[in-house]
């Protein structure tokens, strides 16, 4: 498949190739229970809620911790997070992603203990000093365990081999890879034996994967696809001129519409504001989430949830889930324009790689 393949060509040729190959259904089977939608995760046999609870914690609640952890949460912060997770489970969310680097294994194990047959636990090998055996002791087994890798090297294969063996020993149900590097993801599809699923950045601005080599290959192989960064690490919130006071991106507040930027983009911002005004019950973030929810090749969309009102918004975006409406598409287009005119500055410095690697 040519690297220069266009989106239109992919949609025409790729989808027919997929259906002819008969390898897998490009649209994961989907059903609704209560207000939640569930889709099959690749060929794992597991059904995951379309909205998943991400691992990131509220930066305001973090306290520095001794290695191998980076941070832990304050008592109040932990209580708030536990409350949000419980609320998410009540909504039907069944996939909980947990970072031990933020000291979350133990609290998460405590919360899921009585729901272990209904909740899927997702972990990552984000730190080689963390002992996965500790995770198995805490959770019994781990449903999804992924390797986080940014570049291909022999250590990736060794780490992957360890995950495979743990799966063969019955400690893990599905093993996956998370990466922000499309080349690595594409290579992984061929090189990583037993790959069940992939975490990759996907949002309406950084959706280059629509017509890349990686996505059609992954779909053909029946790999479960999990979208991360559906709100570009919260930065999309900052594109919304009507963003709720106090709402903030994950790491820092970007004064996108402050005095420095707003005068430069009056026409684009006016167009975005006009578009958003046509959907008074919906924020730009909700439209962005619905864009991701609407991609049938995705099994679930995982987003960092660390504010209770954001959780409610995310759920509302899901329960009103349908094909994006014309006014939503117009708003997303307008937001794309604003983001493009802003350059990479609309993103938190930590996430400017999204622009470099994944811009549509």
């Amino acid at each position, binding site marked *: 498949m040519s690297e220069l393949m266009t989106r239109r060509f992919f949609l025409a040729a790729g989808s027919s190739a997929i259906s002819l190959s008969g390898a897998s259904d490009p649209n994961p089977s989907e059903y609704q229970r209560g207000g939640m939608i569930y889709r099959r995760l690749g060929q794992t046999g597991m059904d995951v809620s379309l909205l998943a609870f991400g691992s990131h914690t509220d930066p305001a609640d973090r306290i520095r911790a001794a290695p191998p952890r980076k941070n832990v949460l304050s008592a109040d912060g932990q209580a708030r997070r536990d409350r949000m997770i419980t609320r998410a489970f009540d909504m039907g969310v069944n996939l909980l992603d947990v970072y031990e680097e933020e000291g979350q294994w133990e609290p998460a194990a405590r919360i899921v203990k009585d729901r272990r047959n209904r909740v899927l636990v997702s972990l990552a090998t984000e730190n080689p000093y963390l002992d996965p055996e500790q995770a198995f002791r805490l959770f019994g087994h781990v449903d999804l365990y992924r390797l986080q890798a940014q570049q291909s090297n022999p250590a990736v294969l060794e780490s992957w081999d360890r995950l*495979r063996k743990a799966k*063969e020993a019955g400690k893990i149900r599905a093993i996956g890879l998370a990466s922000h590097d499309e080349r690595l993801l594409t290579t992984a599809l061929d090189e990583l*034996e037993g790959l069940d699923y992939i975490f990759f950045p996907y949002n309406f601005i950084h959706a280059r994967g629509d017509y890349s080599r990686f996505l059609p290959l992954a779909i053909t192989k029946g790999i479960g696809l999990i979208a991360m960064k559906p709100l570009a690490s919260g930065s999309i919130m900052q594109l919304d001129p009507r963003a709720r006071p106090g709402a903030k991106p994950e790491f820092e507040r970007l004064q996108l519409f402050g005095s420095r930027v707003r005068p430069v983009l009056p026409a684009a911002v006016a167009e975005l504001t006009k578009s958003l005004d046509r959907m008074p019950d919906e924020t730009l973030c909700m439209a962005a989430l619905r864009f991701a929810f609407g991609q049938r090749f995705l099994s679930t969309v995982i987003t960092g949830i660390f504010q209770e009102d954001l959780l409610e918004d995310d759920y509302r975006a899901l329960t009103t889930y349908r094909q994006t409406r014309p006014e939503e598409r117009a708003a997303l287009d307008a937001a794309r324009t604003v983001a493009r005119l802003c350059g990479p500055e609309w993103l938190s410095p930590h996430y400017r790689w999204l622009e470099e690697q994944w811009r549509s």
Partner: protein
Amino acid sequence: MALLMAAFLAIVFSLTGFAQQEPFQEAGVCARCHVISVIEWGMSGHRRASTGCTACHGSSAGHIRDERNNVKPDRAPKGAAASELCADCHQTGCPKTAEKAGCQTCHHYHALVDPERPATTSAAARPTGSEARWQAFAKFMEEGEKLAQMGQWAQARTAFQNALREEPGDRRAALRMEACARRSKPDLPGFEIVEKEFDPGTGLARRVRLAGFHIPMVLAAGGEFEMGSDRYEAARPVHTVSVRPFYLGEYEITQAEWLAVMGANPSAHQGDAYPDAARMPVEEVSWEDAQAFVRALNEKVPGGGFRLPTEAEWEFAARKGGAEPVTSAAQSPHAVDRNRADGLGLHDMLGNVWEWCSSVSRRYPFDPADGRESADGSSLRILRGGGYADPVDLLDPAFRHAERPTRRLPYNGLRLARDVPAAR
């Protein structure tokens, strides 16, 4: 067809006195297919003692579900494995002989009839000519055993050969003849015999050394064993497998041995940081590298026959020796002779480095004739035994790991196997 089958069953039932079909009712779902076995079981003491199919074969749920018979029963013990199972209940052994082994030499697997009770196979029912041959056979066998006990191997071999003439194809006579032939000419091409200790069943030297390379190998005398484990999904179901006698490396192939044969050392753990490197196992070798190694060895050593063990052979040896993990979760491999040998004389069957097997990764039951021992193709190949960095629960004789045949990793090595040379 159905009528014919019904008529056949009616005849069988009436002949065997099972017209009431009670054994079939008692045998339940098993009786749907295993008609003859159920009839045999129906006339046995096991039935009277309410010892049903599952007592020996397990629940065999997968086998019952699978109408194509791809899934074998949980257990189908034969030979030594069957005798071990008998001992679970008959703990004092045979009521008459007190023997605890070789139950099936007298007792049928299912019918379990009294061997002294006249039956269709009894001497009285045999034609006269056949009876004469049988008596001659028994005489030669007895004579052969006496000569063997006196160490007169050549004469014993002749006696067993005569026995075989009377009963061509008798397995026991053939094995005894082969064992005596080996004992009369114990030298094995390409091997130096380390100790003058021989396996009584096969007549083969228990410990040998590879001529020119001094690679020690021990005899795994072969037999039947229960392969697999319910503990791991890929190791299910547990099933009975038979392996022929073979030699297996006492140690994993070391870096020095690899260097001597291949002229280069690919291992990740070598250099000044590892003063014991020469005695450490070679690693960072792929399955294809391992095959190149055995090819090179076969060219250099008279008689050849070196190869990787099949995964059945590997598991047989690990179970026979009672291998136990000594260390786990280490940073690097250790010298191959650091740890004590297991009951078979093998070191580090569990731990140190993973060992490539010849077998392709396929679902159980293990059947060497189904193509899994093919040398061609790019299919995943089995590794066994666990490595230095693995947690202890992966260091299990039944645990199977599979890897691409081209992949080199710093914890994958090999152990040498060799066919037993034919008796001369």
